[in-house]
């Protein structure tokens, strides 16, 4: 048994994050057990990706390969993608439709519920070889995750200790999922981004409304998202999930130019696009919210940026690498013009996004800079210290402290045991 790693969390309000949390391989190993296989619900896929009986797809929970499928009765299942025989990756395709799962190594065959159905040469040849007499096929079942679906979004958990999904998400999150998935969706496609940084640095990034209007100059310049606009960060009761939201067109020139004073590179009011169609927002909801970045602990972000809708799944790959898996969608009743508008606005985000390309770079540059500073700490004080609660401004990073308050609970780290850091 490995020793449980210890990290120094000097501030009880989680306003200091030890850089070792992003670098220590023992911490990463523990996270796979305590976070991704712990009492959390992990985003797996969207039901719209598995419309028919026999449909399956490959996904990840942390670093564990998982298959999600729909059986012949229409029930959804999720299994660790591993044959129970010798550990071979059972399903090699990204997705497909199949009546069963056959392991390529020795042709062990499982049905769509994960039950072992057939093994070749069970009785050997001429009474020699084959399975032992007491071999009980009925007892062999793929390692199953418990799954629940909310509004067509499929979550899975490894742990029997997980609370029901609806309670785990809580009303702040379900409100947003209800809104984003208020009618049937249509999958538009996928993007993948390989980010060379720790998976938590990306979670920090999406829980940091402050950076959105500072790092992303495209945002600020064209008014899609400015720190001077109406917006904020809504936390769930436990502080582990966050909704960053704003409404474009709610800022005034004076507050904006004063706020951005000294950051002339970020906010360039004279800068215009030759083709402004991409920036057009088509109202789809009774509210005036034009941006939602909903981050659900530990592995998913739901996005609305104007009319661009997607999920972003975090797939870990060691301490310093992760894949961000983007699934874009529109609504099933979108006409051709609306679909084209969503495809145009897909240019705003993703690995090549006019707005979001910076995030991959920011995460990597932090990872590189802190590697040899593992005894030091990140400072998280914007928006205030102390209580972790919903924020009525975008100039805040309090949701990051919310993330770590739950993270530390799961990891067994105690915060605030030592005096304040450097």
């Amino acid at each position, binding site marked *: 048994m490995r020793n449980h790693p210890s990290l120094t969390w000097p501030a009880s309000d989680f306003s200091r994050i030890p850089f070792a949390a992003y670098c220590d391989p023992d911490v990463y190993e523990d996270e796979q057990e305590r976070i991704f296989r712990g009492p959390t619900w992990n985003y797996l896929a969207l039901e719209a990706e598995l419309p028919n009986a026999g449909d399956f797809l490959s996904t990840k929970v942390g670093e564990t390969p998982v298959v999600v499928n729909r059986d012949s009765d229409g029930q959804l299942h999720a299994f660790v993608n591993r044959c129970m025989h010798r550990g071979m990756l059972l399903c090699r395709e*990204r*997705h497909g439709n199949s009546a069963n799962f056959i392991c390529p190594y020795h042709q062990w065959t499982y049905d769509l519920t994960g039950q072992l159905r057939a093994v070749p040469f069970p009785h050997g040849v001429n009474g020699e070889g084959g399975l032992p007499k007491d071999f009980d096929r009925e007892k062999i079942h793929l390692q199953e995750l418990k799954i629940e679906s909310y509004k067509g979004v499929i979550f899975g958990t490894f742990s029997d200790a997980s609370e029901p999904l609806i309670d785990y998400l809580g009303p702040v999150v379900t409100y947003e999922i209800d809104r984003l998935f208020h009618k049937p969706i249509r*999958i*538009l*496609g*996928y*993007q*993948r*981004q*390989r*980010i*060379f940084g720790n998976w938590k640095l990306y979670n920090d990034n999406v829980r940091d409304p402050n950076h959105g209007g500072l*790092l992303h*100059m*495209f945002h600020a*310049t064209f008014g899609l998202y400015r720190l001077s606009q109406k917006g904020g960060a809504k936390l769930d009761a436990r502080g582990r999930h966050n909704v960053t939201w704003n409404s474009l067109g709610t800022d005034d020139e004076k507050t904006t130019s004063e706020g951005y004073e000294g950051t002339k590179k970020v906010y*360039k009011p004279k*800068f215009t*696009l*030759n*083709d402004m169609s*991409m920036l057009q927002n088509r109202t789809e909801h009774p509210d005036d919210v034009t941006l939602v970045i909903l981050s659900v602990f530990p592995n998913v972000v739901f996005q609305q940026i104007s009319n661009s809708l997607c999920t972003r799944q975090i797939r870990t790959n060691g301490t310093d690498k992760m*894949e961000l898996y983007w699934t*874009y969608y529109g609504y099933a009743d979108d006409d051709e013009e609306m*679909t084209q508008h969503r*495809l*145009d606005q*897909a*240019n705003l985000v*993703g*690995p*090549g996004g*006019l707005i979001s*390309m*910076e995030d*991959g*770079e*920011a995460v*990597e540059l932090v990872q590189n800079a802190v590697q040899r500073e593992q005894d030091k700490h990140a400072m998280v004080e914007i928006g205030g210290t102390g209580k972790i609660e919903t924020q009525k401004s975008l100039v805040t990073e309090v949701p990051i402290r919310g993330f770590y308050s739950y993270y530390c609970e799961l990891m067994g780290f105690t915060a605030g045991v030592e005096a304040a850091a450097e």
Partner: protein
Amino acid sequence: MTETGVRDAINDLMADYCHYLDDDRLEEWLDFFTEDCQYKILSRENVEDDLPLELLSCRNKNMLRDRILSLREANIYNIHFDKHLLGAVRILGAENGGYRVQANYSHYQSNQDGISELFSVGTYRDLIIFADGKPLFQEKIAVADTFGIPRLLSTPI
């Protein structure tokens, strides 16, 4: 124009396209496109599955101009050199008053420490037309086998 003349002109355009990108002459590179051009980078997995999402899409030259403007003025991205290696250019045939052209590419990026990595490998599937005797891209479509984008997609493929 003779058949050889067309072939030479297409080959020169394909080569110039790469060299202008690698030399960071992005504003001049725009001159290789028609006003109604389509410039797209597609993920091979979406192409195989017949899904419409692009990795990057400009449906006219103004959108392409905006991309370059955004790179110059707005975006923060990895500081690097680009190098494109172009495979043999295949002229597949006449289409819509132009020529359907295909070529494989490798696109390497080199960082500030002088370390070079393959950034993308894939196939250009282009439509080249002639305007006043000059070849131009009406469609420049890069289908990336490397659909797991390393870091971020900034400078064009």
